[in-house]
């Protein structure tokens, strides 16, 4: 039951993904070709709002509604940020979707994208398999 609230937040996000058209392969093409401000506007605004929210939460030492302390772990430096980042970027341009929009695309009726999602799961699995042999 306690997980249902995350389902609702996810639903809001899915609606926004479709209505701002960021699930569109065309919007991603525009972004990587610098032909439109749209995607930069969406991501830039989201970062700004996120940044302000995180600062407020930290200053107020706010707790979650369940009384849990809010702790955000630092991200660590690693060459994998660049190597993995380049790979994901290439995939993002090809599929026109980062992982979130993949789920929304399928929900919005583009059923064939379930193949892309399955392949993404296979990609994650393969990473897990090869992890110890990859530079990190």
């Amino acid at each position, binding site marked *: 039951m306690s*997980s249902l609230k*995350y*389902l609702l937040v*996810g*639903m809001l*996000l*899915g*609606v926004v*993904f*479709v*209505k701002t*058209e960021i699930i*569109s392969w*065309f919007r991603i093409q525009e972004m*990587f070709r610098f032909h439109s401000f749209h995607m930069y506007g*969406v*991501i830039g*605004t*989201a*970062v*700004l*709002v*996120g*940044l302000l*929210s995180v600062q407020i939460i930290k200053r107020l030492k706010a707790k*979650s509604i369940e009384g849990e302390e809010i*702790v955000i772990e630092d*991200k660590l430096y690693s060459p994998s940020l660049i190597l*993995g*980042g*380049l*790979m*994901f*970027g*290439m995939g*993002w341009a*090809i*599929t026109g979707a*980062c*992982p*979130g929009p993949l789920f*929304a*695309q*399928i*929900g*919005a*009726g*583009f059923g064939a994208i379930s193949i*892309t*999602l399955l*392949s*993404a799961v*296979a990609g*994650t*699995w393969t*990473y*897990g*398999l090869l*992890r110890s042999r*990859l530079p990190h």
Partner: protein
Amino acid sequence: MLELLKQPWHWAVGGLLIGLIVPALLLLGNKKFGISSSLRHVCAMCVPANIPFFQYDWKKERWNLFFVAGVFLGGWLASQFLSNPTPIQISDKTVAVLQTQGIKDFAHLLPQDIFSWENVLTLRGFFFFVLGGFLVGFGTRYAGGCTSGHAIMGLSNLQVPSLVATISFMVGGILSTHFILPLFLS
């Protein structure tokens, strides 16, 4: 009101709502916005295969699976009840370039010349569905996050590693758009 909601939403509205997901998840249960982790949890749940990377209690991360199930349902809701009746308006420049590369369908959010079931078993389909998806799944986990985890959550928390990741996403996408996609489009 419904008519207004059916139109495409302004980037500022979308950005604001996506940005608010960050504090919403923190306040609801100290959860960090991140979507690609769900792919790892699916592996841990369905095919752990004794791989150490998938040996953890995925049930503790169940919220993330509910979250992406919500994204799926939200996509369905928006397409069923808030669908925009007119074709998507994209930049003329992008349309012109893609036309020269053989794209004909500009009416949908995804061009049906590529992303339809008929293409799944073709070379083009292998590139756009299988290889593209694989790179998304492998790359996000290798980089430790995707657009939500690094570009939005990480940058919101002023993490320099997330800036490095975000720049890498952009460089990979720009290279892929200009040098690799044209080979498979036309």
